[in-house]
């Protein structure tokens, strides 16, 4: 079964890029969502295996969503221009961070590592 990756990104080009990349890695993409509201609405219907989260979305920071995902044991990859790595990894143990602009390999590694915990074999 193909793992599902939730993408939250408010920048359309970046979102498209991510979508393409993640699909390219062989995951099923959920989103991308530019706002928390949209993402939360989607989450009500389905729980992804992993999530790539831009910190700042159109309607605020992503952390409330991240908390929910954490509670549901969804593997988190933070994708941000901010250097929040230290703080974030403290609040969300096991999460990964990828600095913008993202490198393809690094994103792939991050996704694989977080999904490995959640799903036995993503590929």
């Amino acid at each position, binding site marked *: 079964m193909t793992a599902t990756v939730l993408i939250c990104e408010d920048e359309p080009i*970046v979102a498209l890029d991510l979508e393409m990349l993640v699909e390219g890695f062989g995951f099923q993409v959920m989103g991308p969502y530019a706002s928390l509201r949209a993402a939360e609405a989607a989450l009500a219907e389905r729980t992804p295996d992993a999530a790539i989260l831009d910190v700042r979305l159109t309607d605020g920071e992503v952390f409330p969503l991240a908390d929910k995902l954490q509670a549901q044991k969804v593997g988190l990859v933070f994708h941000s221009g901010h250097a929040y790595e230290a703080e974030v990894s403290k609040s969300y143990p096991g999460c990964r961070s990828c600095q913008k602009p993202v490198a393809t390999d690094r994103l792939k590694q991050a996704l694989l590592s977080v999904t490995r915990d959640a799903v036995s074999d993503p590929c």
Partner: protein
Amino acid sequence: MRDDNQGSPRAAEEESEAEAQERLCIVGIGASAGGLEAIREMLTQASAESNLAYVVVQHLDPNHESLLAELLGRHTELEVTQVSGGETIEAGHVYIIPPAHGLSVKNGVLHLTEFSQPRGLRRPIDDFFESLALDQGRFAACVILSGTGADGSAGLRAIKEHGGLCIVQSPDTAKYDGMPTSAQATGLVDFVRAPDQIIEAVLQFYAHSLVDKIDERLARTVEQSISDICAVVRSYVGHDFSGYKQSTLVRRVQRRIQVLDLGDASEYLEHIRAEPEECEILFRELLINVTRFFRDPEHFEVLRKRSVHPLVRDARDDDEIRIWVPGCSSGEEAYSIAMMFAHEVRLQRRSVNIQIFATDIDEQMLRLARDAVYPQAALGDIPEEMRDLYTIARDGKFQVAGKIRDMIRFSVHSIVRDPPFSAIDLLSCRNLLIYFGDQLQTAVLPIFHYSLKPGAKLFLGPSESIGRYDHMFQPVDQSARVFQRLEGSPKYPLQLRGQTRSEGSQTRRPARDREASTRLEWNDSGAVDRILSQFAPATLQVSRKGEILKSTGRLGKYLDFTPGRDDSQFAANVARPGIRDALSALIRQVAQNNKRTLSRDLTAQSEFGRQELDLIADPLNDGTILVIFRDRDRFEPLSDDDEVDDLDPSDSHVQSLEDELRSTRHRLHTTVEELETANEELKSSNEEMMSMNEELQSTNEELSTVNDELKTKVDELSIANADLSNFFASTALPLVVVDADLNIRNFTDAIQSIYPFRGADRGRPLTEVTSTLRRNDEVLSAIRAVMQTGEVSHMRVSDRAQDRTWSLVITPYRTPDGDLDGATLVFTELTEAILLEEALKHEGERLRLALDVAQLGVWECNPEGGVLKFDDTGSSILAADFNELTHEDLLARVASEDRERVREAMKTDLHGAGGVDVTFQIAGDLTENRSLQLVGRRVDGHRTSRVLGVIFDVTEEQQAKRVRELMLREMNHRVKNMFSIISGMVRIAGRTTETVPDLVASIEDRVSALARSHDLTQSSPGAEQLTIEDAVRASLDPYTDGTNIEVTGPRITVNSQELTALSLLMHEWATNAAKYGVLGPVAGSLQVGWEQAADGEVTLTWNESYAEALSSQEGPAGFGSTLVKLSASQLGGSVAVDATAENRTTRLKYIPGPSGVTE
């Protein structure tokens, strides 16, 4: 008379055994005229280290303050003090006698004494030396320096008697040699030295005794050899000292060893054997004694009452009162007693024969006694009523009057060796027994008992007693030591000592014996009388003039005594005819040549008959002549024939001549007596003159001392004056001294700038001198005020041009007595200081302005004090009501989160070398969040250091900083985002384009579109909002040439996110139109329009109208259309395309978000 205090030297000796190691030696220095120089020379050599202390006794003018201490102090390293009484003498000090006082020492403490004698008779040196001798024994030394008179000679004797050291300045180095010469004449001086060698001699002498062990060892060797030494003395001098007190002997022998600087007693024994002179010296040394006229006057008074008065009162007219003074030394005691008797006789108006026998074993002393010349100073000891009667002044000295001298017979006689005198009425033996050992004393008292008549008095010294002979004597007055001989058979003491007198000593002595006479008593026993009267030839004792002194035997055959004639009988006058001439010739001859002479074959004719005889005249030692009549044949009774011969004309002629001579002599005698009376009067006038002279001399001495002192003082004053005038000439300080009348007394050269004084202005009133001062009258009145009140006045004065300013201090000028006598004006130029002050003020103002404008508060604190002082600005910044805050006060105003940091900074930085620089927020001020910065730096002053600092409000800076940080973070975010977009774009493009040039072109286009959109946001003025038109025009900007483009629409603002999306969207549209539409290959026009509906939805229409109908203008759906879709979705809107052959219309519908620059 010998000294009465035997206890002290012995005590001193015992003491010395215990503490000689540290024993202090006191050197008494006696000086008078010319003494200052000698003392100075002497003390220059003195070291403060040695164990010597010095006491200077100088004759001083009682009415004049002495500068001696001050003058001496500069020439010696010793500490010099003028005595004020009660000082304990310490080594290394010099004590100076104060004027008008005497000085004495007791237990090492100096005391002032009042003079009892009038000026001229005072003997401060003698008095001090005597007390010093009693107090310090052999640790007293005396030095006699320059001076006139004889003060010190008696004191020297006391020092010597107690074992001390006597040194005299050599007379040739002394300015006035009176005192040294007189001292030397006593024969008791140990050293005669120049002043600068005196200390050396003292040190040499005491080198032995100052160290315990050496001293003891020396004493022991002396003890061992004392009998040998006595034997040597006895063999040379003939006097045996072995019965004397051993302690005295040892001490005096030891002294000689010290003076000679010998190692021990055996060396001395060798020395004394080799040098007979030394024998003499030791002999004299052993006999040293202190004597004075009327020593212990109260005892003499007792003696007068108990003995002299009754003796004179009870004497019958022709009685002779016989007095014996053994151990008379230099005669003072004998003369004292003689004067007492003479005075008593005078008072009682009696005529009594007084015969005083004064004996001693020392011929030298006896010679002094016979001369009866004593230093003027000793006159004070003689009671005033006797002074004029019995003394005659002789050039600084005095002599005992002839009538007193005539009462006394001085002779060499040893009480222990020679037979004693007998039938004595009074025996005075003072201070002799104390020198005798027990054995000798035991021998002597029975001798005295023998000599004295029953009931006669014995007068002893204060510390002598009769011991166990209370059966012989009974005290009459115990304290005055007057005793009465008890009844009892006199026992002639046969065991006289010294009987073994060697022949050797006999042969040495005649030279001296010639001068002395031993009066031999004939009436020792009846046997002698019997022999003389019955068996001896008739004998006469006559004086050299032929006066009959004594007679024995039957003389009637030879002499013709005339009864009833009391006056002296001359032998020649009473001789029988026939021997008269021979007798007078014989006496004359013997008197002249002093040889025994015989006159043979004479015949004495008397009325009874004639007698053949030889006449022998034999001179005796006492100057009298013994005339012995030795019969040659039997007496021939007178026959008638002989009567004729009786009237021998030659005999009667001689007789008449002699009678005439006698009457002439008588007349001569009367004349002589008259002459003597006149002479006596002259003498008394002379005496008066002498005593006046004496006073003048002592005044002169005192004056010369004062003169010496003043001379030295004047020298010092002229140096001080030179210093002062140099100071006046060289100082840059303007100074004027005025006297009480405002006359100029003195001024410095620097005063010229204020008062143009010339040298001649001294003495002119200050009021007359022109001054450059603007308000000179104020200065003058201030001077007057100072002279009235005596208080210092300060004022500020300036010259007329007001170019220069001075601070003027007017101080009262006080005389040494403390009286106000003028004023001193000292000017200190302030011009520079005032300029500086003004400059400083300006500087301060500038600084204040800067501080005020910058809202800087200033503070300072003492690192130790812990209090920070803020100025007003500072305390208002801190919102404090007061200016001084402690550290805790300050910290209380710091927000709690900053407090520890500030505390730490204050603690470390204030005490460290650097400064403080700390920023903090104010506590309890949540709304404003004011921040303050406190900066301080340590400033090191001359003695203290303090911390100076400023405090200021940095709230704005802090806020600006926070904003800046926020902006930076945002910028960073955006840049990263942009990178993300670009990298996304690259990746997307990579998937949708086939060739690299296409990829590059598509990316390049879009990146530049993004850049343009970015430019748009940046180039727009901050306040102005961007509109849709801006975005449209920016997108169309590259295509404006040649094509008909119409842009219409209302003003609708867009936010930056919308702008980016809009820009990208418009870019895609424009690119598409350029590739396939009216902006490119197809001719036509472009209309871009927008409108906003009532619900806010904006419709943007892109309409291309073709000039010719187009069959198909649709490009392939690729990256561009994806971007358009994405952009539209980003705007939350939708895009619809409506294409015909004539035109192509694309519509974007979206609802604009809230406008604003920031998200």
